[in-house]
């Protein structure tokens, strides 16, 4: 069955994926812990904050049974410091870094795994606490754009200054998108763009375009590529191919 959709995820799908993120909720009424597929939730006991998946938090919020307390990076101070980083001349080339990875849990002993617990390391988008109140205030997590959008739409009354936060989010998005687009200029069949710290929605947004461009370029270059391959094959046969192949490889890595 052919879907009329471009490859990759649609924004709503990314938003859906974002809803598994845990956010901190300040409950306004009691609720026993629930056994969810993603794991059991903590029982809610006002006024103690508890982490809940975003979808459940939004549901409770809509029923006025809870308040969502926005993560620290989604505050005016946090966002403006990130925005400063993004617009600073010295760091204009790169995206603001993603949250630092958690330390491996447990502690291992050298040459001995005794007493060492599971030291599983996570990477985005599976970082714990990336969007709860315990998250880092100066780093955008993987789902920053979607999460910010969802929270601002459904829980804007829980923000201190929702309008400024909204404006800052928009600014950030524009700055980062322009950086991404700047990266596309150097796109070539073999070139790459460094995208460390780019969020899920941004990837979804540019995936169609970048993929298309790269595919198109490859198609255009196919004949040249083929002729080059032929030439290389010939050269290899002549015993001269090794070094030039090496050069190509270097170019690829740029």
């Amino acid at each position: 069955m052919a879907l009329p959709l471009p490859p990759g995820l649609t924004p709503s799908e990314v938003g859906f994926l974002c809803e598994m993120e845990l956010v901190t909720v300040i409950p306004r009424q009691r609720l026993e812990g629930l056994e969810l597929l993603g794991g059991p939730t903590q029982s809610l006991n006002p006024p103690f904050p508890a982490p809940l998946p975003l979808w459940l938090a939004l549901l409770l919020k809509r029923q006025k049974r809870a308040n969502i307390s926005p993560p620290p990076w989604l505050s005016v101070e946090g966002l403006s410091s990130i925005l400063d980083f993004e617009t600073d001349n010295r760091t204009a080339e790169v995206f603001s870094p993603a949250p630092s990875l958690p330390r491996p849990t447990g502690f291992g002993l050298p040459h001995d795994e005794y007493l060492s617990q599971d030291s599983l390391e996570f990477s985005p988008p599976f970082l714990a606490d990336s969007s709860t109140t315990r998250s880092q205030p100066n780093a955008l997590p993987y789902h920053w754009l979607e999460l910010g959008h969802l929270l601002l739409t459904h829980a804007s009354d829980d923000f201190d200054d929702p309008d400024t936060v909204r404006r800052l989010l928009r600014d950030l998005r524009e700055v980062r998108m322009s950086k991404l687009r700047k990266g596309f200029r150097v796109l070539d069949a073999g070139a790459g763009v460094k995208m460390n710290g780019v969020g899920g929605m941004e990837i979804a947004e540019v995936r169609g375009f970048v993929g298309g461009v790269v595919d198109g370029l490859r198609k255009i270059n196919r004949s040249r590529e083929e002729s080059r391959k032929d030439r290389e094959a010939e050269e290899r046969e002549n015993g001269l191919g090794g070094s030039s192949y090496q050069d190509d490889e270097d170019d690829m890595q740029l």
Partner: protein
Amino acid sequence: MATKLRARPAHAPGPTYLSYTPNGRKLVTVGLNGALRVFQHDSDDEPAVIDVPTDNHFAVAATNDFILVGAEDGSVTKYSLLTNSMEEMLVRSSLPVRDIAISPDGQWAAVASDELEVKVVNTQDMSRVMYLREHPRPAKHVSFDISGAMIAVSCTDGLVYVYSLSSEQPQLVKRIDGLIKLLDNEAEASSKAVWHPDGRAFAAPSSTRDFQVVARNDWKLQKAFQGGHRGDISAAAWSPNGALLVTAGVDKSLVLWETRSQKMLKSFNDVHNVILAMQWHPTDNVLSYTNNNGELFIRENFAPNEHAKLLKIALQHAPTNADPLNDISGNARRPMPNGVKPNGHVRSGDDYIEGLLDDAMSQDGADFIEDDDGAGYAEEPNRNGKRVARSIEGPQAKRQTPGPVWQPQIHEPFQPGSTPWKGNRRYLCFNLTGFVWTVNQETHNTVTVEFYDRQEHRDFHFTDPYMYDKACLNEKGTLFACFGSSHHPAILYYRPHETWTSRTDWRTELPKGEEVSSISLSDSCIVATTTAGYVRIYSLFGVPLKMYRLKSSPAVTCASWRDYVMTVGNGPVGGDGMTRLLYTIENVKRDEICQSEDTLALPDGVELKSVFFSEKGDPCIYDSDGVLLILQHWRTPGQAKWVPLLDTKTLDRLAGGKKEESCWPVAVANNKFHCIILKGGEEYPYFPRPLLSDFEFRIPISSAPNGDEDEINSEVTLRKSLEEEYVQSSLQHSLIQDLVENTSATQTQKLEATGLEREVDKVLLQLLAVECREGEERGMKALEIATLMKDRTGKMLEAAGKVAQRFHREILSEKITHLAERRMVGLVDDDEV
């Protein structure tokens, strides 16, 4: 500092003089024209004017009730401050009156005129007059010392004559030469002797334009305040506690000095006329002066902010050359919240004896180091400013009886979880159930009670004609209390949240004149401490259960949890002049006293901020240093001790001092400290309601680990955190163990106790592993850790042995096994390690 200096035209241009009443409420000025002006302190209203028949007034002196005004025509007239009218002509001389001084008790007035003799008149009975006649020329100034037993007369012959008034006939005590300048009667420059408020010295402007201190016990010249003026000094005033001095010169200078170091703190250059009279306000940071142009200046916040604290400290010593006690006790002292009230007391007739005693005593002390060879060792610490010469309020204050009356500092009562008025609203109660706040609507208040759990309870709101100023809130109901007024006595009002009858809220009125000082509400009782020193305990439905008098009163605060009631009161006075806080914990149902009049452990200078019971029912306090403490072993009388749970100053976000943040305590629950983070130096939360923050306990065992630890010291950090964890889990275990042993605990609590015991051993096991890893040489410590294990089944020691084996610490492993065996057969007691 006042940004704009505004002169108040008080009189016709010309010499003007002023006097504060000793209570500081009124300020009287006199000048050339025939009217007196009475200014109210702290009010910008037009002053009251008393029209008088005389003009050209040169002297004024005030008591709380009346003023004496001396005029050029030689009359001294008494005016009442109560009616603002003339009472009588007190005394009349043939020549102009130059100065009037009233003794501190207000009984005697000394009048210096251009006549040769100084008259000392009884202010109530003008027929009783004493004459001071030993000085050969007219007196220019007179001043009473603090006890009122001596008068210093600054004579126009350049000498100061000190008379004693203790006998019927005044006697000349001392003639002091070489102190003051020879001045004309009408000179603007002054030679007035100004007694330091501690009564041990006076000071007078010298001929070298310095301000010279003279000790009272030997009448020798002591230290001097030098180099402040280029003209003669025209007025001078000690601050009420003697810590600061202001002098003004005829060169239109005005200088603020620090008494202790005789250093010039600030020179003011905004004086445009010669200041003739100057006085500090008795309590506030306000200096008032009048000049020779008929103007009055009331300078609020006169001492700059960095020095304003000097005004709040206790009475300071006069700067004499030998102050051994001062030099030893170089501790910074707490400010006295009550303020010092010099002259605010009425002294009785035996002052002189006290004065003599004082002399005798201060001679013992003051001459301990005599700087007789001029080497300056006695004053050296003062010069380099390293040793702070401040008084100990307690014992020294006793010696200084001629000075301001020393009063013990009592702790004001407070209601935990409430905030003061700010704007027109305040929180009456703030806890984990919800919060109660009230809005002042002038004629009434509106009280709103909001809950966190909106399903369980419904928020409510009512109009409050009684102006409730205290409230408690819990799951069952809300308790309010208000002050009595002319319409009603003090009222306690309880309103349960749920009811199955029509109306169950009740009010009870306290006996007339008794006010509620703090209230608390628990699941089973209502407690109120009152200003009459009573503790009143009611059931939830208003049945008075018991009432008794608090042993340590006045009460400060109270807290309750189920049947346990904790009351805090002012106990005996401690070394720092503050009363010790004593607490009593009682079980009202079983009528058992758990802790009786035990001291609330607070270090010097730290105040109690809040008292509450933790969720598990252990008493907690939070002090102004930001430390949260919990009471351990409090169910056994005499065993209780305060254990710190968390020092909020060491928290990551508060440490470093980058942000000016503080915690406002709310509760202890779920093994966390719940508080409100206040930013920007705020002391209390305000509206909109801030979010609660919570912090894990961290017992300040060692300095907090740095945030940026690298691999090398991560091991140290780990060990430190394990050590902290050990102390904390032992504490938690002992708390729950106490609970299980002393109450009919539930099964879950018993399980929790054993779980926590295992937890302690687990932490010890981890610590043991760390020690084993460090190396063979740590074996002794590792064995010691093993002996700390609580587990009696031997499993934990077995595990410890395994850990040691794993690290190939064979000897250690052997020893642990040995220990385990001895324990199994009961050979090792707890005491024997």
